[in-house]
């Protein structure tokens, strides 16, 4: 075992998969190290890192075309908020071509995008837009919360034959470290992980939400036994693991950074209500960002985002 940071884990996955399959390459803005034009193509063939102009809808569309014709691009959208300029190639092209072509054409594409708030970057650099993708059939959606999952899920995403949206959290880049084995491992798409077992309440934490839920669970240790479930992938969603946990605890809290309204918390509540009716002893609750654009000012940003102290408070209220 050794310690890896979240980004080291993702880097390692990408490097290993590039070694394994020459169809895998990265494309996006500022991903270096291509620095000078004359030797550009040659460098690219060596480096497999293709630094683009600022043209997201162009290079995402190109990635789809490349994926349709035998390559396996890892396409980087520098901040999740920027997908507003390139939703079309993601949801109308990548996601739909398999069905629209009658199953002939696969689009093995990973779109990798850092999301999340907490860095005081304001309204255009703090978004978490997973629920747009969850609502776009044909896409898989991955949101790891620690280095082990980050690596294993990235490898599965790259090997998947369909388009996968891989959302990494910008705070976890810096804060998340963990013990990891040497060598390679895969984490399957569609399998949740119980990050901490407990008996009193189920907290489903998405991405940094899982980290914050673990902090809250720790803060409540000895008083409340909190089970923290990390879905890891939102499509496919491992609803069985969530239902099993709720069956045990009778209480459900979902935590994510995206706005509550129309977020994946609502979708998880729907699944539990439809498929696990009667398991809940009290109303479920979703903690998400307040329904607003993200303000810049640090106290406002902190107030808008769910913090681990908010989770503690919510748990106390729900059980109290």
């Amino acid at each position, binding site marked *: 075992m050794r310690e890896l940071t979240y980004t080291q884990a993702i880097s390692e996955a990408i490097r290993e998969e590039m070694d394994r399959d020459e169809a895998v390459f990265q494309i996006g803005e500022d991903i270096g190290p291509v620095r000078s034009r004359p030797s550009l193509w040659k460098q690219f063939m060596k480096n497999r890192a293709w630094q683009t102009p600022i043209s997201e809808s162009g290079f995402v569309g190109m990635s789809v075309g490349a994926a349709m014709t035998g390559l396996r691009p890892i396409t980087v959208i520098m901040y999740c908020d920027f997908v507003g300029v390139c939703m079309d190639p993601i949801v109308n092209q990548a996601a739909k071509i398999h069905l629209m072509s*009658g199953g*002939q054409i696969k689009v093995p594409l990973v779109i990798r995008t850092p999301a999340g708030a907490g860095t005081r970057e304001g309204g255009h650099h703090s978004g978490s837009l997973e629920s747009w993708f969850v609502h776009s059939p044909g896409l898989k959606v991955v949101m790891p919360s620690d280095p082990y999952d980050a690596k294993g899920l990235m490898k599965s995403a790259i090997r998947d034959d369909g388009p996968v949206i891989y959302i990494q959290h910008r705070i976890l880049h810096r804060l998340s470290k963990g013990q990891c084995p040497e060598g390679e491992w895969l984490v399957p798409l569609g399998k949740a992980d119980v990050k901490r077992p407990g008996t009193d309440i189920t907290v489903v934490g998405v991405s940094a939400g899982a980290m914050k839920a673990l902090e809250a669970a720790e803060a409540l240790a000895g008083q409340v036994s909190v089970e923290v479930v990390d879905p890891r992938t939102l499509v496919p*969603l491992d609803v069985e693991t969530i239902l099993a946990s709720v069956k045990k605890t009778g209480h459900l809290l979902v935590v994510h950074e995206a706005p509550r309204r129309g977020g994946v918390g609502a979708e998880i509540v729907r699944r539990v209500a439809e498929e696990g009716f009667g398991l809940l002893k009290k109303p479920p609750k979703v903690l998400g960002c307040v329904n607003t654009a993200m303000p810049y000012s640090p106290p406002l940003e902190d107030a808008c985002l769910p913090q681990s102290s908010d989770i503690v408070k919510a748990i106390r209220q729900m059980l109290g």
Partner: protein
Amino acid sequence: MSNQLGRRDFLRAAAVTGAAASLALAMPPSPKHLVELLRFMRKIRHFEERLTGLYQYESFLDKDDLAGDMYDFASKGIIAGAVHLYIGQEAVAVGVCAALRGDDFVTSSHRGHGHAIAKGAALGPMMAELMGRKTGYSKGCGGSMHIFSKELGLLGGNGIVGAQIPLATGAAFSAKYRGSKQVAVAFFGEGASNQGTFHEALHMAALWELPVVFVCENNLYAASTPAVISLATPNVAERASAYGMPGKIIDGQDVLAVHAAAAEAVQRARGGDGPTLLECKTYRFTGHAGAGKGQHNNPEELKTWLERDPIALFEKKLRDDGLMTAADQDALKRQVLAEVDEAVAFAKKSDFPTFDEMPVTADTDLLA
């Protein structure tokens, strides 16, 4: 690396019989090839004429409507949906695709029947797709705007104006990455040249010298919008210079002119010298959508363009050059009409797909 990748089976077409693509290597085209060009133009023409008959048109246009459907079509016929005809523009698809190899790639627009047929699509599965049958190219899941054929290198029509331009550019990127010497072509209208995707894709294609040919079919209208009020400058070809790319204006009613320009652009692309923008001046002879039954934008103007029917012009040339007689041409037309009959019969007797046959993977929670 590139060689190994190149040898993998990435949409490399098997020998595509009957494809216009098979004409590729003849430049200038041989007499036999010239007749094939004509045949392909007729295939497109008569295939689409038949669609008109199968489309049971209903108009909902309300002259005072400020708020409704912008398009005036609907059908309860055996062919439904938004069916955009290519009639009048045949010389472009055929001239361009005749310059391609079987394993080259094509992306197309909402108006894609002509490109598919010119790239070698058989009329039976085309017709079946339009009738929503499981024998269609896309198993009935695509429809008029989404005809795909992996083996023909047909990467689909597209319902999103301009989206096909980056797709073709990406296919060209892939060809270059793999060292496969394939070329990609994007077909799109002058309306699409106003989309951001046009700018972004042409620019990156030029920057990275990708093997792609951009074929803009300027038919003077984008749905109800005349080019004269939607293009700040009359020629789309001139936009190429913004990217340091060659741009050429071509008579889109002259199949040989199109073919010659396309052959040059394809050669340039295949040779590693980068992309070209071709602007083919052309005209659609029917309304925007509704399988030819909707109102035409400008019936007066249409009359003068009908005098430049690409099929009539080319037939005259073949007769003038002594390569075909009127009787030969009549026979060819009958052959094609019979092929269309067969296609209709094939499609009509094909089954509809069932819900359980939809090509979706189990792990995507279809019903969750």
